[in-house]
């Protein structure tokens, strides 16, 4: 995630489709009136997006695969339904449905992307037409599923109204029974039109959808940039927010590293025995220590939330996106076979070998920050940490903790203050553990080939594999003994 939406049209439409599918398991909780109020906007944005797609591939006039363009019909039917709804007592004015709103937002976003980047004039490129056909299939499938969910919600509403009919035939609900029954039959018609198109095109058209090939050097570039910006942010501006974002991103980075190295081991790109017996557990421990560090700094940061450096947030977002592009398939972790089909695992494993070295170095930088008396943190955060540190597991105060931890004026104004000795000792202990865990993992990874974008380029040029020994991490004597 970044400040700007970097998703492709296909990804935006996939999100809309997923949102529509999410309606169906929740049919009992759907608000028919809210959905009906939002539906016209969904169809309107879909029609706008549809109009911007390159012209559809020519369809045979007859035969089982022929089907007319459904969008003008759906738009006209929805416009008529909307006009009718405005004069009826039900659904009437009120809140809109957030999920249908999200689908409409996705269609708007996709339309913006196409409008901004499309080439002028008609295209004869078959791949572009195939991609447009896939987009059309997704749009109509999303409308079909949404309409179906909405129809079920209206049906549930109709039944609820039927249950309220008095023995004298009086219906207390606004709009009575005739309105929802009429809406139901009109939604049936929309569902039939969209369903006909879906049965013809879905999911066959998706097979030719354009997908970006992940490029191997994206991970190397993203990891290198992250390393630089994480170091710079903590050294130049060691705020609790920066420390927590660095720790959280390191946890994420090492988690994805484990997934990729595991896939590399299964594919034979690295030594599977060495990975399983030497690296797997230390890597997971290093990840977990960054996780604990991130949670601790998040508590500090929550007492004086400030925007993080934009370059740091961009670097974190890019490293996340570069790794997820390879390790995530749909909404779950990709299988080793899928990962192997996406990237050169030898190359990526080499890049990730350097991650553990720089991870150790970052842990040292964190320790430098917590031992530096000139570095300050918000008084309320320091006080909260001191209070938490001065209570035992049952929540009782430990001996000697009765005295005030932080000056009351500092606390009231939330002024920046240095860590108290007790909090500093606690954080130094955490940092030492962080260093020890990451150093252990870096040493355990010393057998991995190191590989950089430069060596990848060299390898392509010379077709000669070159590897070099890992550079020792910045090590400090006595820092490797974990306290907890």
């Amino acid at each position: 995630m970044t400040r700007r939406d970097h998703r492709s049209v296909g990804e935006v439409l996939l999100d809309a489709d997923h949102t529509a599918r999410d309606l169906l398991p929740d049919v009992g909780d759907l608000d028919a009136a809210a959905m009906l109020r939002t539906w016209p906007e969904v169809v309107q944005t879909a029609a706008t997006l549809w109009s911007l797609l390159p012209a559809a591939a020519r369809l045979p006039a007859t035969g089982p695969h022929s089907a007319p363009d459904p969008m003008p019909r759906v738009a006209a039917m929805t416009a008529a339904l909307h006009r009718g709804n405005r004069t009826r007592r039900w659904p009437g004015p009120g809140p809109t449905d957030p999920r249908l709103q999200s689908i409409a937002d996705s269609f708007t976003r996709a339309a913006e992307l196409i409008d901004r980047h499309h080439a002028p004039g008609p295209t004869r490129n078959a791949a572009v037409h195939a991609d447009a056909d896939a987009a059309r299939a997704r749009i109509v499938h999303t409308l079909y599923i949404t309409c179906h969910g909405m129809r079920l919600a209206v049906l549930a509403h109709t039944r609820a109204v039927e249950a309220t009919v008095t023995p004298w035939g009086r219906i207390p609900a606004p709009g009575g029974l005739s309105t929802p029954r009429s809406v139901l039959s009109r939604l049936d018609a929309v569902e039939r039109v969209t369903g006909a198109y879906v049965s013809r095109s879905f999911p066959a058209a998706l097979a030719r959808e354009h997908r970006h090939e992940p490029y191997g050097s994206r991970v190397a570039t993203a990891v290198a940039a992250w390393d630089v910006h994480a170091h710079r942010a903590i050294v130049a501006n060691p705020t609790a927010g920066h420390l927590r974002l660095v720790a959280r991103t390191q946890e994420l980075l090492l988690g994805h590293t484990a997934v990729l190295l595991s896939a590399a081991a299964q594919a034979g790109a690295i030594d599977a025995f060495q990975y399983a017996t030497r690296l797997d557990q230390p890597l997971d421990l290093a990840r977990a220590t960054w996780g604990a560090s991130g949670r601790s700094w998040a508590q500090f940061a929550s007492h004086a939330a400030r925007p993080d450096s934009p370059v740091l947030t961009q670097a974190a977002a890019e490293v996340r996106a570069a790794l997820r592009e390879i390790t995530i398939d749909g909404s779950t972790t990709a299988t080793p076979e899928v990962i192997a089909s996406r990237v050169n695992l030898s190359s990526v494993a080499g890049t990730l070998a350097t991650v553990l070295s720089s991870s150790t170095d970052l842990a040292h930088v964190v320790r430098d920050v917590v031992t530096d008396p000139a570095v300050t943190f918000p008084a309320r955060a320091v006080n909260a940490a001191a209070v938490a540190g001065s209570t035992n597991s049952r929540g009782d105060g430990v001996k000697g903790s009765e005295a005030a931890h932080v000056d009351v004026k500092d606390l009231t104004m939330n002024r920046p203050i240095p860590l108290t000795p007790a909090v500093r000792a606690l954080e130094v202990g955490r940092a030492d553990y962080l260093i020890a865990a990451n150093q252990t993992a870096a040493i355990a990874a010393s057998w991995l080939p190191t590989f950089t974008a430069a060596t990848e380029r060299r390898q392509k040029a010379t077709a000669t594999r070159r590897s070099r020994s890992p550079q020792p991490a910045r090590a400090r004597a006595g820092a490797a003994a974990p306290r907890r």
Partner: protein
Amino acid sequence: MNTTTPPADTQGVLIMQLVARSLVTAEVRAVDLPGTDAHQCDFAVCAALLTSQALQLLPPGVTVDDMTAPAERDPVALLRGAEQLLRGHPIQDLPPGTATLLGDLSALIGRSRP
């Protein structure tokens, strides 16, 4: 000619403060999410990035330090609350960039839905 800057929409600023406060709490509460460590971590990173995005939209000098943290403990419910706050106010009265924040927020909610 009037050269003074019109005052910021105080209601819009207050809403953005509440949104930022909810996002801060959601990030801290990421540990309560069901699922794997990887899922929690990804949520926490995204929430941290969103928090930064929301805080950037506040006028200079405006913080959320004195805002009471929401009582809600479920991180996804906190995000939904933030989304509802934004959607319940005319977008033109909120700072430029809110639409992007809203899009990213909706995307994270969509991914985090169990």
